[in-house]
């Protein structure tokens, strides 16, 4: 076998995982960020701390607890089994849950900062122009938070692409099912297949650079247009 014949399945799997997780992160993260940006409830600090936990916890700790929760006897695993008849641990769905939790702060924090930066004024202006709360959110808050949204999407996506520890703990390493890019690279290195590890690593490096470059470029464009 050619030393550089590479199985690209982990790449597609990683992309699929990152896209799915980012979409779910946006759906969950945006309302959470909006609420955190505007509430003065005493629940704000605890929720902020919980959202930020993945930033400080070793991925293995998060992965360990997730493994317990997702196991067929764990709380999440049991519910999932009752609904779908399948198992969460060592499955793609399990990976999505893990990724969403692990990347949550990377989506919520930039969005929350962006929403906070808007302030009350534009929303009051919009209310005086006849816009109701939902209308204001979609036609004023989201467009004004565009830069935060771009940052949140990129960070959420890139962080999911690059995750390793959590995936290893809850996904195992099942080729074609839960073997993602970072784990595949680890395997190649373990097997001393440095050539293959190089190709995948360099690809990931280039990809990451490109993503960050595009984000910064977009943000600068938006800034130049006063957004």
């Amino acid at each position: 076998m050619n030393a550089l014949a590479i199985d690209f399945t982990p790449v597609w799997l990683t992309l699929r995982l990152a896209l799915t997780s980012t979409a779910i992160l946006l759906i969950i993260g945006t309302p959470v960020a909006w609420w955190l940006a505007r509430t003065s409830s005493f629940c704000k600090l605890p929720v902020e701390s919980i959202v930020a936990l993945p930033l400080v916890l070793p991925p293995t700790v998060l992965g360990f607890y997730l493994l317990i929760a997702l196991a067929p006897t764990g709380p999440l695993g049991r519910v999932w089994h009752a609904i779908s008849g399948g198992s969460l641990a060592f499955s793609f769905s399990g990976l999505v849950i893990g990724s969403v939790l692990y990347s949550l702060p990377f989506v919520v924090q930039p969005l929350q900062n962006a929403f906070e930066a808007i302030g009350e004024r534009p929303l009051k202006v919009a209310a005086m122009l006849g816009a109701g709360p939902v209308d204001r959110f979609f036609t004023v808050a989201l467009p004004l938070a565009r830069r935060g949204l771009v940052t949140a999407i990129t960070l959420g996506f890139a962080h999911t692409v690059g995750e390793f520890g959590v995936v290893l703990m809850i996904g195992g390493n099942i080729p074609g099912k839960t073997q993602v890019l970072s784990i595949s690279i680890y395997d190649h290195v373990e097997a001393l297949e440095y050539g293959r590890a190089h190709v995948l690593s360099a690809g990931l490096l280039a990809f990451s650079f490109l993503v960050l470059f595009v984000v910064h470029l977009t943000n600068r464009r938006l800034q130049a247009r006063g957004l």
Partner: protein
Amino acid sequence: MSDIDAHLVLRRGEFVLDATFQTPARGITALFGPSGCGKSTLLHCIAGLEPAVRGTLRVNDELWQDSELHVFVPAHRRRVGYVFQDAGMLAHLSVRGNLEYGMRRARRARSGPAFAQTVEWAGIGPLLGRRVQGLSGGERSRVAMACALLTDPVMLLMDEPLAALDARSRAEMLPYLERLHSELSIPVLYVSHAIDEVARLADHLISLEPGRVVACGALREMLTRLDLPFARSDEAAAILDAVVTGYDEQFQLALLAFPGGRLAIPQRRLPAGTAVRVRILARDVSLSLAHHHDTSILNIFPARVLDITEDRPAQAVVRLDAAGAVFLARVTRRSVHSLGLKPDAEIYAQIKSVALLR
């Protein structure tokens, strides 16, 4: 019963705003008071932007708020046009985008001509494609005003629309505000801390002190009430409404008539029949018992003393009535005594100078 009837209470930390007032729902009502007395906050409460406010608010028989009945019409359903102090607009939209944002959400779909008319009125046609950040202070105010008008509001709230402008933009804006007054059928609540602005624009006046309403009523009456600070200040003045009756070609004087007599003032020619508003400062009015003809003063007419307050060690303010027109004279206490001035005394008022406000 087309009135604005408010009893609003707002507690915010140490500051308590407790405002009770009633004002006709027509013309311009000025909310006047020193900085920090709660004028802007009161305007926010009326607009529904202050969820913590308690009390009742009724506008044109419509109940907007009644805390006892748990009625609180949300801000976007009150249909008020609001011009914020900094002429706040939506930064992510162009000037046209801002104008259309409110227009699309108006009660009645506004027609194309309404848009064109308002744009023309505010003189903002050339600005439509611009981003709002690039506008000058005066342009910004005019766009904000047009935005507010295009929402087809039942009432217009303006929070010191001139405060953020330099003297030149301010002079540019005043005519727009005056036209607003003559062309608009909806009531305007206008926050200001500049009494000259109020004298020029307003019909009614709500006078605020920190946290509360001191008095409210018709502008002319409020400015001449001896129990309020306006009449006692150095700038104390009366506002009179007059009509242009002619023009003295030889001496270039505009001739005006008001209920109590005639006035001749140095002015450019104005069309006869024009309604004007003039201001007579209390310190420009002197009193005499006889009608002197050997004087340089042009404007002299008979008046009756209404009341007198000796508010300063050496000075007094006399409130006068000239056939229904009420005005003030700032004189010395000695003069009050030597002329024997007391309520109902008949005297002659000599007006040294008259300012045309509009």
